[in-house]
């Protein structure tokens, strides 16, 4: 986590504005749903639209558009600049090194690994990081909102989600294991291809084509088996997960419906619940995926940091220069 803060320490103001926009966007959605609930209840009671309601709806829509646009812009801006800072820091560390040392490493495997790490960081920051922030903010605010609307219904529909989250975590681990096997098999297959290019003269002179072809075919078969096993397990676990993910909604509809019949809940509020339930249950179900992605991102950052520390000094690098 420290590394994530370090990545953004030169962009504190932009991060604060981005997070404020996220909050504003989520709040606008909640107010909009609250207003919709009121409108539905009014229509259900036989009353027509009223001017204040229409004005409020219009304000919420403008509010939502402004904050959502701002969030999109600021998250892209902040992310790009944070990764730019990291690249520049890396470039500065490289510039301070001996020419011979840099020339020797140019195009080597550590450099290629570092480039891949940077690519992963860039992708995560631009595609996932602020989406994750918005998801977390949305989760907290929506949960609070739903609790203020109806505590019993909120708890009732969220309880089985805990079980679902557990299932997703376990199935995610199983899929990860299979994915790892598949990646290893692919690496072995690619390794043979790389070797073929590397030892081509030897292969020709010693007529080892058939031997290597046989080995390559067996590696393709190994990879093929791993892919089939991975996809089979994924399909089984994901289809069950898809089926189970309907449970919260079914519970919400059945419990909410009976509450409406008893008169303890309005149709408008149930509509708001149905509309917003995904903000909470979706996050809980997919928490393991979010955490795994975030951990991978932290791992990428840590490896880049290690590399920078090896070659220069991350802690006294570019990150602290702009304050």
């Amino acid at each position, binding site marked *: 986590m420290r590394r994530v803060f370090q990545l953004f320490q030169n962009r504190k103001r932009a991060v604060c504005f981005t997070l404020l926009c996220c909050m504003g966007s989520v709040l606008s959605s909640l107010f909009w749903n609250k207003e919709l609930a009121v409108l539905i209840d009014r229509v259900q009671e036989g009353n027509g639209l009223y001017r204040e309601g229409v004005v409020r709806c219009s304000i919420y829509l403008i509010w939502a558009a402004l904050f959502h646009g701002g969030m999109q812009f600021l998250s892209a801006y902040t992310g790009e600049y944070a990764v730019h800072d990291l690249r520049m820091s890396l470039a500065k560390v490289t510039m301070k090194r001996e020419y011979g040392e840099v020339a020797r490493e140019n195009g080597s495997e550590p450099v290629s690994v570092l480039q891949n790490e940077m690519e992963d960081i860039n992708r995560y920051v631009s595609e996932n990081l602020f989406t994750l922030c918005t998801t977390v903010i949305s989760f907290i605010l929506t949960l609070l909102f739903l609790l203020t609307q109806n505590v019993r219904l909120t708890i009732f529909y969220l309880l089985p989600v805990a079980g679902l989250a557990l299932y997703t975590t376990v199935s995610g681990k199983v899929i990860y294991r299979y994915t790892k096997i598949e990646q290893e098999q692919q690496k072995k297959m690619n390794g*043979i291809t790389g*070797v073929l290019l*590397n030892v081509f*003269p030897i292969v020709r*002179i*010693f*007529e080892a084509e058939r*031997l*290597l072809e046989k*080995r390559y075919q067996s590696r393709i078969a190994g990879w093929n088996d791993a892919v089939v096993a991975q996809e089979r397990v994924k399909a089984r676990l994901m289809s069950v997960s898809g089926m189970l993910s309907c449970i919260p909604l079914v519970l919400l509809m059945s419990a909410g419906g009976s509450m409406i019949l008893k008169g303890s809940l309005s149709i408008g509020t149930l509509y708001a619940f149905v509309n917003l339930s995904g903000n909470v249950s979706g996050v809980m179900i997919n928490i393991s995926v979010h955490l795994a992605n975030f951990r991978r991102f932290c791992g990428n950052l840590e490896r880049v940091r290690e590399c920078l520390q090896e070659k220069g000094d991350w802690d006294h690098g570019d990150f602290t220069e702009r304050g």
Partner: protein
Amino acid sequence: MGILLKEVSFGYGDKRILDKVSLAVREKEHIGILGCSGGGKSTLLKLLSGLYTVKEGYCEVEGETKPEGIRKQVAMVMQTPGVFPLSIRENITCGHPISEEKVWEAVQAAQLEEWVRSLPEGLDSLVEERGSNLSGGQAQRIAIARAIAKDAPVVLLDEPTSALDGETADALLRAMEPLTKGKTVIHVTHREETIQGYDRILVLREGKLFEKESL
């Protein structure tokens, strides 16, 4: 005649690397070729090993003129050993039906026996990609054992010791004696001490081949 080259020229694009090179090597003759980096030494060996096709001039190795035929007549040890990510046995036999006895003979001749016997899986021990689980000397000895096992009449050596330290290089030169004994040998190098005692020493300069004495 072991090897015969007549006015062979070769180049990459517009750049001419070999310019009308002629060479006659008797059977079992040992020839050392000296030259600086980029002088065309490796290109000459690639032509003699049938990796490149001669388009200008004439090339004959043990009576063969086509690259496929030439490749059957030569064994080569290169600067980089070029090991496969397979077992030690497969690295030596290259998938050809070579008897266990012959493989051990090659291992022994390349001074690998003690090391191979110390491995839990012996000849079936796996070599990792790019020989990452081997030392430079071990990888090069496997390449020598492979060349010995092929038992070809012509042996081509392309600076096989240049990537090794002095002591390992000396030991490797000793390990190469069984490989070169009774064979026609062309050894290209930029270090003259590695070809001491050879029948003839030639120099490749600016694409042309000279007898060392004539310089």
